């Protein structure tokens, strides 16, 4: 945990202007940091802004506020800087069907990054481009790789496409991998293999991984730290064991209760309006759906007014267990110190949106 911070996000805000001028704040103030050799899981429900955050880290989306830092230095927007950044940080996209050019063969798709960075002739082990493509494909579980070289994406199964994407990112030997739902379309056996591969790369090469997922089992499988995102904000983060076995935020608790295989918990189905990034609720952004507010436990602790009106601060990107919840702060549990100061109105940022 003492390794220096490799990638860092500070106060990232990303907005989209939709039709009729409605502005969606997909990412609403996020601090996040990743060290090399660290695996961090970003979990949260659909539409909570995980992909947008990942894309912004990659420089594919322009933040309205905040900055992304690599090795402590802000990443610029000039082509040269971005290209250098992207040599060290790679991304696996969420939609494997759309992320492959229908006119490129598997070989071309995997070799694209190698060619772009002109490192074809500069492999440390002196391998040819073809050998490197083959190695990347087989490490992603596509064996023997030669049999897939000439296939077009529409001739692959869903899981095979996903692995081609992973191979394409790993072929560049990045220091950090941002993987958006990397195994969601894979069956059990390959899923296990790929996760094991990520752990191996981490152990051997110090690869850092930010894995975006809705699969809490995956976070449990490989992540050192887990951050839970809700409506553009990280609402709870900390060591995976803590988050997944002793969740403090009612939202995290609800998420855990609906995991199909964990039938030990009574499923908490969230009611209330569907979260909408164009209308982020005042106070705690989760309060309209919060089961703790609905069943009166917030009122019992005397924080229900705060839940409805007082904004919570952006959680700091420390490694400790922190939670943005008035109730948790009042109870003084884990991360209490971080969230205790939260009970007051948030200074500056966020008051206007």
């Amino acid at each position: 945990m003492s390794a220096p911070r490799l990638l860092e996000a500070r106060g990232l805000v990303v907005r989209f202007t939709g039709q009729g001028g409605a502005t969606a704040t997909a990412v609403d103030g996020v601090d996040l940091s990743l060290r090399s050799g660290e695996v961090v899981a970003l979990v949260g429900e659909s539409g909570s802004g995980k992909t947008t955050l990942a894309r912004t880290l990659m420089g594919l989306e322009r933040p309205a506020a905040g900055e992304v830092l690599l090795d402590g230095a802000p990443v610029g927007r000039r082509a040269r800087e971005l290209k250098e950044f992207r040599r060290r940080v790679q991304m696996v996209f969420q939609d494997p069907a759309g992320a492959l050019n229908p006119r490129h063969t598997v070989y071309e798709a995997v070799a694209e990054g190698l060619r772009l960075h002109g490192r074809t002739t500069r492999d440390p082990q002196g391998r040819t481009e073809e050998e490197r493509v083959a190695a990347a494909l087989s490490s992603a579980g596509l064996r023997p790789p030669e049999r897939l070289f000439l296939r077009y994406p529409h001739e692959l199964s869903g899981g095979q496409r996903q692995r081609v994407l992973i191979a394409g990112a790993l072929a560049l030997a990045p220091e950090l991998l941002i993987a958006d739902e990397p195994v969601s379309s894979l069956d059990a056996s390959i899923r296990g293999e790929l996760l094991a591969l990520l752990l191996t790369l981490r152990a051997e090469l110090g690869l850092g991984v930010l894995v975006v997922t809705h699969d809490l089992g995956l976070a449990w499988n490989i992540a050192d730290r887990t951050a839970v995102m809700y409506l553009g904000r990280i609402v709870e983060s900390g060591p995976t064991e803590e988050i997944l076995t002793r969740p403090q935020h009612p939202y995290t608790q609800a998420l855990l209760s609906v995991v199909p295989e964990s039938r030990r918990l009574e499923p908490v189905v969230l009611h209330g309006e569907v979260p909408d990034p164009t209308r982020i609720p005042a106070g705690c952004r989760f309060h309209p759906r919060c089961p703790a507010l609905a069943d009166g436990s917030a009122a019992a602790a005397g924080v229900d007014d705060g839940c409805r009106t007082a904004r919570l601060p952006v959680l700091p990107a420390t490694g400790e267990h922190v939670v943005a919840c008035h109730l948790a702060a009042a109870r003084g549990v884990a991360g209490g110190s971080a969230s205790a100061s939260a009970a007051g109105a948030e200074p500056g940022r966020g008051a206007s949106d």
Partner: protein
Amino acid sequence: MTGLLRIEDLSVTYRTEEGDVPAVRGVDLAVDAGEVLGIAGESGSGKSTLASTVLRLQPSSARVSGSVRVDGSDVLTMRWGELRALRWAGASIVFQGAQHSLNPVRRVGTQIAEPLRVHDPRATDDTVTSRVGELLEQVGLPAARAAAYPHQLSGGQRQRVMIAMALACRPALVLADEPTTALDVMVQAQVLALLSGLVRELGVGMVLISHDLSVLADMCDRIAVMYAGRVVEQGPAAEVFEASLHPYAGALSAAFPRVGDPAARFAPAGLPGDPPDPRYLPSGCSFAPRCSRAVDACREQVPPLEEKRPGHAAACIRVGEP
């Protein structure tokens, strides 16, 4: 011949320049109205191929033999007109990863409305709009999202638009290919509840494809497990999940970790060995090379799919042996 869907001895082979790829090899399946059949299996085992063949949507490089009957009529020999009627109103399919097949330059509402308008050309704009809103709300999206373009939606939201489209014409048979893999657990629970509601209230028959056995166990009446183009186990959902007979099905159900289980921490479970290459399948049982229980006899003969317990069949000669 009753039953909503009857698949008999279906084989699908892709012809490619590097040789034939037998993706589905002799599959028999049946689904009745009001029933949910789950299909699980490894990536590349032929699940999607099977589903698209049911509506004759397989690519033109595929050679198909066997029969597929929907409501008694054979889909594979049916005339074009009938087939179209079937695709519009009789049966619909939610494609795997289909979020990207949404037209990027048209609003999602317009795209959901399309089957509605084709189905009933006399429908007024108002009825169509309100039905689109209703469909969106059914899949957990605000009706106002109809005005969004696909790239303005998250992956899970696009997947839900695809489900809304498939439900638009109230089909009698729904084929859902990995409908929830792009969704978080909360929405997954919601969509699964929606789908099972359809089955219960409208008596829809459903084929649900997933690689996640726990999802299938929750949702289905029966589960069929596929490996290398064949059904290797079929039986009541709970039995297949908790007391599987075929070693591959056993590996599948063991592979999803239970959150909080210390044994699974930093130890993702996998299945050793390489996935099978459909072009060079081993003789005998195709799972034998990766199977810890395989004996010589396994490599000699293809094990038939036989009933080992009432209503529960498996294609493994080692079932019941120590």
